[in-house]
């Protein structure tokens, strides 16, 4: 784990040509023999926002935990395939830098916010990267400002509302200046106002996003492109609006739009030139 370069210097390996995230032939089985991923291929371009859709049990969360080497061959598990983040392949000696580049926001903010105060928690990642003193304080303040929580820095996480905690969880990974933000069910348990506020924040960020969600209107609003994962494989990829409008595909993979929602009647997220 000493392979991570100290400090948060801007990534030298990133180039405009290599995608923010490239996954190739990823397969994985848990130690009890239950295989979850059967060869996943996907790509997220620099600055692109992509939704990862799929029914419960499709392997979405398992896939997310591979993206920074928490699960998979890198951490001693059984698996095959390769992952590259902005051109840097995930290996044992690069896992530290990969974890800086891939910012995962977990579904339950109580799992992610484990330090005594909001500021301590946002400082956790950059401090692990070697930042100290005023540089660290600046990074924390900037990340909290990006999600509109700078005035709550000294509060204990438990005093915040659920929506505020979700936003702080986003700040904890933004503080590491990731190349790609990976969100697990970002809109779950949020009231409509918090859900919209989070969407505004995600739209204001200049970073690639991969977002696992069951909230199909949210995917349509935020992500120009969507991937459909089922049975451990990517079964469809395309413009979010086209996927959601494909009735047969949706039905075949247990996806349903909310009552009365017509994906063709609302403006879709603008596409990113790839």
């Amino acid at each position, binding site marked *: 784990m000493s392979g991570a370069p100290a400090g948060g210097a801007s990534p030298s390996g990133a180039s405009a040509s290599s995608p923010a995230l490239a996954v190739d032939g990823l397969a994985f089985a848990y130690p009890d023999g239950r295989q979850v991923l059967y060869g996943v291929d996907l790509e997220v371009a620099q600055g692109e926002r992509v939704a990862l859709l799929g029914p419960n049990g499709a392997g979405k969360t398992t896939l997310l935990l591979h993206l920074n080497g928490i699960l998979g061959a890198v951490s001693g598990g059984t698996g095959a395939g390769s992952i590259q983040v902005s051109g840097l392949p995930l290996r044992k000696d690069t896992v530290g830098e990969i974890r800086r580049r891939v910012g995962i926001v977990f579904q339950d903010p109580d799992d992610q916010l484990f330090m005594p105060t909001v500021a301590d928690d946002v400082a*956790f990642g950059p401090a692990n990267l070697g930042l100290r003193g005023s540089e660290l304080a600046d990074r*924390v303040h900037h990340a909290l400002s990006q999600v509109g929580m700078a005035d709550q820095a000294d509060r204990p*996480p438990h005093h915040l509302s659920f929506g505020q905690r979700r936003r702080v969880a986003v700040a904890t990974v933004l503080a590491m200046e990731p190349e790609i933000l990976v969100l697990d069910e970002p809109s779950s348990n949020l009231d409509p106002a918090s859900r919209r506020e989070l969407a505004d924040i995600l739209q204001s960020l200049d970073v690639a996003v991969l977002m696992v969600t069951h909230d199909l209107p949210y995917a349509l609003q935020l992500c120009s492109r969507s991937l459909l994962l089922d049975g451990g494989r990517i079964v469809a990829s395309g413009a979010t609006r086209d996927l959601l409008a494909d009735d047969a595909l949706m039905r075949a993979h247990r996806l349903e739009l909310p009552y009365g929602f017509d994906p063709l009647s609302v403006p879709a997220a603008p596409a990113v030139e790839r």
Partner: protein
Amino acid sequence: MTLVVGPPSHAGAQGGAGEGSGTLASGHLPGHAHGHVGLGAPEEGLLVIRDTVVHRLPAQVKLVAVVAFVLVVVATPTGRWGAFAVYALLLAGVVAVAHVPARLVLRRMLIEVPFVVFAAVLPFVASGPRVEVLGVSVSATGLVAGATMLLKATLGVVAAIVLAATTAPREMLAGLERLRLPALLVAMLSFMIRYLAVVTGDLHRMRVARESRGDTGGRVGQAAAVAGTAGSLFVRSYERGERVHQAMLARGYAGHLPALVSGRAARAREWALAASLPVATLVTLVLFVSVVPR
């Protein structure tokens, strides 16, 4: 427990009726209030929010002062009642300066009750010359030893109450860190404080779910359900621990937690101010032992 009608206020959160989202309600469940007195909002602990010179002292200074005070109190020979009276006055002075309500101190002193029982037994079981108190024959040495023990314990408990009422848990952690407590212990305490509220919330929801399905609780016949709750609470907490660990790894955790940002170094003036309590106590002890005859 008093109920407040009207908009919630932060100042009303002191003591037992806390404002923690999950734990507040648990105190109001009929038949269960006894189990939650004082649990309030665990992440603020027993803090009484005021702005006094005692509150503003860094936690490490207060921790050292309390430990030094308790050491002097414990070192005081048996039966030096005058010294104990002066200690009590000194401590009462600190309580007044810190604006901690006396009623609150008295209520929190209830935690001492088991010690009182033990001290009360001493006069009856100790040997030596007997004296008559209210027509009951008790051991004279046991009586003195029991009373001294009670006084020492009370002084220690009140000092700890003042510390807890003037220091937020997160400041306490930063203070312990500055006192070079091993990082692993600081981390364990930190996680305990952070997740106490979460686990209490889990427990509360599970109990509400159980009682919503007709389990009234409290009877021996329901012990199996309670045991089941405890078991699944353990499994839940264990799984949460695994998820928290994953979240830590995802942000580059490599075996040690970074220093807390909330702490700050203490100034010499603050050390001197905090030292005034244990030093005054020590001077009192020396005076009473060397000058005042028994």
